[in-house]
């Protein structure tokens, strides 16, 4: 494949989006338009596979749109980070689109916005300059606001508005960062900046990096920028929650990694490690207190992102591999969890996990898939969460922030014991459904089942072949074979999960006690109003500026 093929990663979903729009214009064509639009997502997969060999050899593939030379032209770049980022987007988008195809209510308009969002995510992954990154971030943003509010419910609209205000404020600071970079160096192309100017350690460049990180940080959702996520992920349509948690926050995280490495921002690492560890712990405590199933999962997304951020910023020799491996695994199991739990919510018409009844017998395939996802996120062998957490342990070695992550791991187990009851076999005794969401008592169709089965298989495969996957990622990111190989399936490693499981069960029992219930009620009620959210954002901004200075 020539370098020009790179552009088809962006063009294919764009064409798919226009096909979907045609389906909207000509109602008769709608039946054909949706599958055709969905099929456009296979093209990026093939392109990524065909480019994998060259990226593995350490080649950086560059392509200038329209042949305009640097630094004015818009460049696309494909390197290790971009490849992983685009691959996660491609896999999750395919799974989600397959799931949405199974339901008529996700019309061709929905597919239009969805494919535009996927275009934006691929764009952020492969972009070669900072301003284009801003444009693609805004493409994601505009479409995601629409998709979060898709159901037209009050909660959806309010969640979308909250996210809009926060992320638009964030992106203003991203623009400010771009301005500072341009003023200081006169170029915005990532490859040209990487040749020297970005590394110059001046106060302005440090401030620029802090601004850029804050802008991306809102999309990545770590503390203190995480406040939009629980509502946005919880009240979006189920497939959108899946891709939001699975791919979107990862794509922003990878963009942040790229920017930090470009500007040689090692001075941010100590703060980011602590932010990551604290994010992981506080979010999992909030998750444990939730009774709304999708909010619970949303808090877990923040918590797992804390892991990813902490191990990246710990800066060991396998930091990137460990954090990207966990990001990829989290993408797989979290979208799986959102899709299966979404199906349960639809079936029972209820979001409270104590009122949903037990659906194990009604939807056996989904129950198996759900438990695969739950065991993955809890880090139980042989699922993929176990593998990447082993890498995180060796990546965090010697860091004093690690105990926080260890506490997080058994609290995660506890909260999934709590959530697990919805898919246990038993009577589906759902009481009166919620006023806004009606239960359809409809078991999932074939396409939905295929989608979650594929994700389940992927969770198992990346777990069983954990070392091999990590080695592949290491070659992509560093160009060398894996230097540290934690022994995944030795007896010692397996025994280490035992205390986590036992403490998890103990923590679950503690939550069930009266004091635990009272505390959970308090934590659950904590939903900061928009003004507090924005003040938190400004505090985070100051913290980043202070750390950079």
């Amino acid at each position, binding site marked *: 494949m020539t370098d020009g093929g790179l552009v088809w990663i962006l063009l294919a979903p764009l064409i798919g989006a226009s096909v979907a729009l045609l389906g909207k214009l000509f109602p008769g064509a709608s039946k054909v338009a949706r599958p055709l639009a969905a099929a456009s997502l296979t093209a990026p997969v093939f392109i990524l596979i065909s480019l994998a060999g060259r990226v593995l050899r350490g080649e950086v593939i560059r392509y200038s749109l329209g042949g305009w030379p640097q630094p004015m032209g818009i460049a696309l770049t494909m390197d290790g980070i971009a490849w992983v980022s685009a691959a996660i987007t491609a896999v999750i988008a395919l799974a989600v689109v397959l799931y949405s195809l199974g339901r008529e209510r996700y019309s061709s308009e929905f597919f239009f916005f969805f494919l535009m969002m996927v275009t934006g995510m691929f764009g952020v992954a492969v972009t070669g300059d900072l301003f284009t990154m801003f444009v693609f971030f805004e493409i994601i943003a505009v479409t995601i606001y629409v998709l979060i509010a898709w159901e037209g419910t009050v909660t959806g609209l309010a*969640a979308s508005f909250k996210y809009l205000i926060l992320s638009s404020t964030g992106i203003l600071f991203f623009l400010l960062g771009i301005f500072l970079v341009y003023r200081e160096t006169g170029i915005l192309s990532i490859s040209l900046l990487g040749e020297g100017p970005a590394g110059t350690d001046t106060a302005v460049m440090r401030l620029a990096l802090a601004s850029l990180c804050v802008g991306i940080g809102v999309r990545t959702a770590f503390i203190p920028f995480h406040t939009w996520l629980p*509502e946005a992920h919880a009240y979006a349509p189920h497939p959108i929650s899946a891709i939001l948690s699975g791919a979107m926050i990862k794509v922003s995280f990878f963009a942040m990694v790229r920017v930090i490495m470009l500007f040689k921002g090692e001075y941010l690492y100590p703060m980011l490690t602590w932010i990551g560890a604290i994010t992981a712990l506080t979010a999992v405590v909030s998750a444990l207190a939730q009774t709304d199933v999708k909010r619970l999962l949303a808090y877990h997304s923040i918590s797992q992102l804390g892991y990813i951020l902490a191990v990246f910023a710990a800066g060991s020799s396998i930091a990137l591999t460990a954090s990207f491996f966990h990001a990829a695994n989290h993408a797989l199991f979290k979208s799986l969890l959102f899709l299966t739990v979404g199906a349960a919510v639809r079936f029972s018409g209820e979001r409270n996990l104590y009122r949903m009844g037990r659906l194990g017998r009604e939807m056996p395939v989904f129950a198996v898939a759900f438990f695969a996802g739950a065991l993955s996120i809890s880090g139980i062998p042989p699922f993929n969460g176990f593998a990447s957490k082993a890498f995180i342990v060796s990546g965090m070695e010697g860091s004093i922030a690690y105990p926080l992550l260890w506490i997080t791991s058994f609290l995660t187990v506890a909260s999934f014991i709590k959530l697990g009851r919805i898919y246990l076999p038993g009577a589906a005794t759902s009481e009166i459904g919620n006023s806004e969401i009606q239960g359809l008592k409809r078991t999932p169709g074939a396409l939905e089942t295929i989608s979650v089965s594929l994700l389940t298989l992927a969770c198992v495969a990346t777990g069983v072949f954990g070392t091999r996957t990590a080695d592949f990622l290491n070659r992509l990111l560093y160009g060398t074979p894996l230097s540290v190989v934690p022994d995944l399936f030795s007896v010692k490693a397996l025994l280490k999960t035992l205390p986590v499981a036992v403490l998890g069960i103990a923590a679950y029992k503690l939550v069930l006690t009266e004091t635990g219930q009272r505390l959970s009620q308090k934590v659950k009620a904590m939903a900061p109003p928009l003004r507090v959210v924005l003040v938190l954002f400004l505090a985070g901004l100051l913290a980043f500026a202070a750390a950079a200075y």
Partner: protein
Amino acid sequence: MALYLIGAIFLTGLWGVVNRANMVKKVIGLSIANSAIILLFVYQGSLSGNTAPIEGTGEVMVDPLPQALMLTAIVVGVCVMALALVLVYRLYRKLGTLDIREVERRSWKLHD
């Protein structure tokens, strides 16, 4: 001087976003802050010359790149503002209020 002015505009907008309870005013605040950033780019670009950036006139022209970038940023900004106002309108139709505190109080209570 101009930079201070732009800073003041930016802070005004930010103040509106953070401190106003009315959702429409929040959106307007966002728009003001966005304009400040746009002014900042264009102002910086204008420092290098004094004529319009047309190739071949032989005079010292302003830096064209910030202007090109800001055209894009303006378009993006307009999209976001329009969408924000749509959301505000839909919320107003459903709840009959523009006060964000009221909206949040009522919407997060609907579930669970």
